[in-house]
Structure formats: C-alpha cells, structure tokens
C-alpha cells in the first residue's frame, strides 16, 4: 500500500482508497452528499444522466452497465430496497473488505444516491459471517450518519453465510427473503429480483463508491481515467508470487503486466489468474493486454471481480488448476446435477492430470465434460469452473503434454500459491 503514484504513470491517484474513514473527514475530502432536501424528478433524471454519461460498469463481476441497471430499477416502480453487496466470496479478493473498512461512507453515499434515484427507503449492507471487523467499521459509519441525521433511510447490516456463491445476486436475495443462500433459476434476467413485494437493486460495494464520486465530481472526471469504452478506475487485489500483495487502484486499460508490477513479482511470472477463481489463466504472450472488458474478452478472459494472482515459475499451473477445480466443486450450492456431479468429476480428472496418473482417455473425457457442464447450471458458477479449466489447458499446453504422458513436472507437489479458506463449511 506504499506505492508512489508519481513513478507509475498508469496508476491513478487513489481516489477510492487513502480516504478518511470517519464521516467528518469524508465530508471534508469529497464535500457534502449532493442530494437535495426534496428529491424531484428533475434531480433524479440528471443523476441518471450523470451515471449514464460516466459509462460506469459494475465492479462485482458482470461488468454490466450501471446506468441500464438503474434505469430498469426506476422503470419498475417498485424498487424499495438497495442492497450493498459486500459479500466478496472470492478468496483472492480483498477490495470490498478494504473499501468497507476504510471508506464506508463512500459506499453508503452511493447506496443513498441510488435510493434517492429510485425512491427506495431501505438500504441493506451484506457482509458475510466471520468478517466482524468489517461489519464493525460499517456499523460505526452508519451510527455516525444516523447521529448527523444525513438520511431518513434505514440502513441495516445483514450477515449471510460465508460461501463462494452467497454473493451471487439471486442467492443473496433469496437469503434475505427466506434464509436460504441458494441461487435461483432465472431464464429471464429482466424479471426483477424481489424481496417480498418490492424489488431490490443490488450493487457491488466498489461500484457504489464510484457512484458517490461521479455524483460529486461529474461523469467527465470519471472518464478522464481509463479507456473510452471502459472508463474509470478499478480496484484490483494482487496476490500470489509477489513481494507486496495488496489492493491497488488502477485505470481501466492498464496492461496486465503493469498491474502485476505494482506488487513486485518475486521472480519470472509463469502465468496470471485474472478475474477470479472462476476466471481465466493468461499466458506471457498476453501480458500486455489492457485490463478492460473488450481487450480481455478477445483473449478469453474478463476483469471479473478484480483479482490477479501471479503464478511464479516454480509452480505447476495444472496442479493449481486442480485445486481451483476442487474448490469450485466444494462450493456448489448442490442444486443442479451437472454442477454437483460434473464439477466433482472435473476436479477428479484435473487431479489425475496434475499428478500424472491420468488414463489415455482423459483429454477426450475432459473436453466432453467441459462441453456438457457449460451453461447447465442455474447460475454461472459451473461456467466459471469450465472457463478456468479451458484456459488452463490452453495456457499450460506444454505442461499438459508431459502430464498426460505420465511425466508431470516436479512442481505439482509444491504448496499452493493460492489462498483457500481453511473451512469451507457454510
């Protein structure tokens, strides 16, 4: 966290981080919350326009245009609830924890602004069980706001289970409504998620922080960073074989290599895991790829939830992928056959491959399984695992040849460079 921005021209000044966490400091730094005493349609329209002009896309994984999401919420007429998604189920991600602990008022401002735009009267902040420190910071911020009477809205903190899938939108909504943290089948994404009779607008914590700054500084200040088609800044958690792991704020469009450099890789980089444990591996020939939606998509990757795990040279990419596949299998919500059984079989295949004990049919079987698992769950969890394995077979192709023929690289027995929660029980 001690990066000197003057030596790294691609890194924006920390506008999301390095920010006072108390209400007074927050207001001194960014100014008052620009919501008028009486909210009228004109203000709402200009706010929506500002979000639209900024080009802000969600920072929770889907990169969905926030203006479209907001427009749908407003058109619904029944949006009563703003849900702050602070779940961050991704083991390698810390950005939302950091943001909620160090700049909770930015996040809450964003939620309040959206509430004002939609006519919602309640905000719910979701922080998983086990992250009591983060919850305490947010609780303190809420208390400060209540004392200063910044809002008439109720802001509650809820504590869903700490599982990978618990932050998935439909799972979160179902948990809030019925206590079951299970994704629902949504063939029509346009059908709004409901809690009771009212609709919910759900946003990642970081997205809300950006909303808070766009509302104050205007869309052009946001667009000054990043790329035209993917503007603004993003928080990225860098981990793995690096000397200074941590959360950094970068301009969208910064080349992957430059982002990794911010954390001082410990040696030559074999590959990078980009986007999440359900994201993709990226090989050295693609390290110059800009960190933005379209360039990443062309190499089969995506920014996802904002993580980069650096895989050092003395490591076995296939072994790490096997661990990721096993993790994915363990995090299934257990509702859909292809996910429950498919991911378990996929993990088993990858483990055999990693240890060099695979049979001759493994590649045929793997490809068949990847094909049949994809798109057949209620949520995107199995798709993430499939995409990850596919990228591994591509990026670690040269290792693959050796492993398949029973001569695995010596590194497959090394301890993992990835973080996994010790307990994966709900």
């Amino acid at each position, binding site marked *: 966290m001690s990066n000197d921005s003057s030596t790294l021209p691609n890194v924006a000044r920390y506008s999301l981080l390095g920010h006072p966490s108390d209400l007074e400091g927050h207001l001194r730094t960014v100014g008052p919350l620009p919501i008028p005493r009486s909210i009228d349609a004109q203000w709402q329209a200009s706010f929506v326009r500002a979000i639209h002009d900024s080009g802000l896309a969600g920072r929770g994984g889907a990169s969905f245009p926030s203006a479209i999401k907001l427009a749908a919420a407003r058109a619904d007429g029944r949006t009563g609830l703003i849900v702050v998604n602070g779940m961050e189920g991704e083991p390698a991600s810390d950005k939302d924890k950091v943001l909620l602990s160090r700049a909770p008022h930015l996040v809450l401002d964003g939620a309040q602004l959206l509430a004002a735009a939609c006519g919602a009267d309640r905000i719910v902040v979701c922080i998983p069980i086990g992250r009591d420190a983060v919850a305490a910071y947010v609780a303190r911020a809420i208390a400060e706001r209540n004392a200063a009477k910044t809002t008439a809205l109720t802001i509650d903190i809820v504590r869903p289970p700490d599982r990978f899938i618990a932050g998935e939108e439909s799972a979160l909504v179902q948990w809030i409504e019925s206590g079951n943290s*299970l994704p*629902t*089948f949504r*063939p029509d994404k346009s059908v709004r998620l409901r809690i009771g009779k009212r609709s919910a607008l759900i946003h990642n914590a970081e997205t809300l922080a950006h909303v808070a700054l766009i509302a104050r500084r205007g869309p052009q200040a946001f667009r000054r960073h990043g790329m035209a088609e993917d503007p603004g800044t993003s928080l990225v958690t860098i981990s793995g074989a690096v000397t200074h792991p941590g959360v950094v704020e970068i301009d969208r469009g910064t080349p992957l290599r430059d982002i990794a450099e911010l954390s001082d890789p410990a040696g030559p980089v074999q590959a990078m895991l980009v986007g999440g444990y359900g994201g993709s591996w990226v090989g050295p020939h693609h390290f110059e790829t800009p960190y933005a939606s379209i360039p990443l998509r062309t190499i089969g990757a995506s920014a996802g939830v904002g993580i980069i795990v650096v895989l050092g040279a003395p490591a076995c990419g296939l072994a790490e992928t096997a661990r990721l596949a096993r993790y994915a299998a363990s995090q299934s919500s257990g*509702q*859909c*056959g*292809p*996910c429950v*059984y*498919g991911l378990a*079989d996929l993990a088993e295949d990858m483990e055999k491959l990693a240890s060099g004990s695979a049979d001759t049919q493994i590649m045929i079987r793997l490809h*068949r*399984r990847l094909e*049949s698992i994809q798109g*057949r*769950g*209620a949520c995107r969890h199995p798709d993430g695992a499939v995409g990850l394995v596919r990228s591994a077979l591509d990026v670690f192709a040269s290792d693959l040849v050796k492993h398949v023929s029973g001569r695995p690289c010596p590194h497959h027995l090394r301890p993992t460079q990835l973080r996994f929660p010790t307990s994966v029980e709900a």
Partner: protein
Amino acid sequence: MTLKLLIDPVACDAYGFCAELLPESITLDEWGYPMVDGQALAPQLVAAAKRAARDCPRRAIELREIKRSV
C-alpha cells in the same frame, strides 16, 4: 408459434422421462441430467414435448415461445 424447451436445472432431479419421450430433442448427460439445444422444436415434436413437460415428476420442463429479437 415456435416453441423451445426450457429446463429448470434446480427443479430437475434426473428422472429421465423427458429423454424417453423426446429422444429427438433431449439427451441425457453422463450424470443422467437432460441436455436441450435451445433450438426451435420441429412441429411434429411439439405433442411429445408437451407430454414430456406434463409428465415430468418435478415439473422442470417448460415450453416457451421463441421471441424473435428485432
């Protein structure tokens, strides 16, 4: 009106009746769960598809109209 098959993977419990009734459109994966291609149903298959939807013990199959996207 063109119809397609939509299977709710949460409701599905791999009874496999649908694949028995409509082998032209539904095949079972190695774990016993149905795979559909999401394409329009040929008119001569619609009757069997409706029966498959009706006979599914978990009511996991729906026949949906394919909307033409403009």
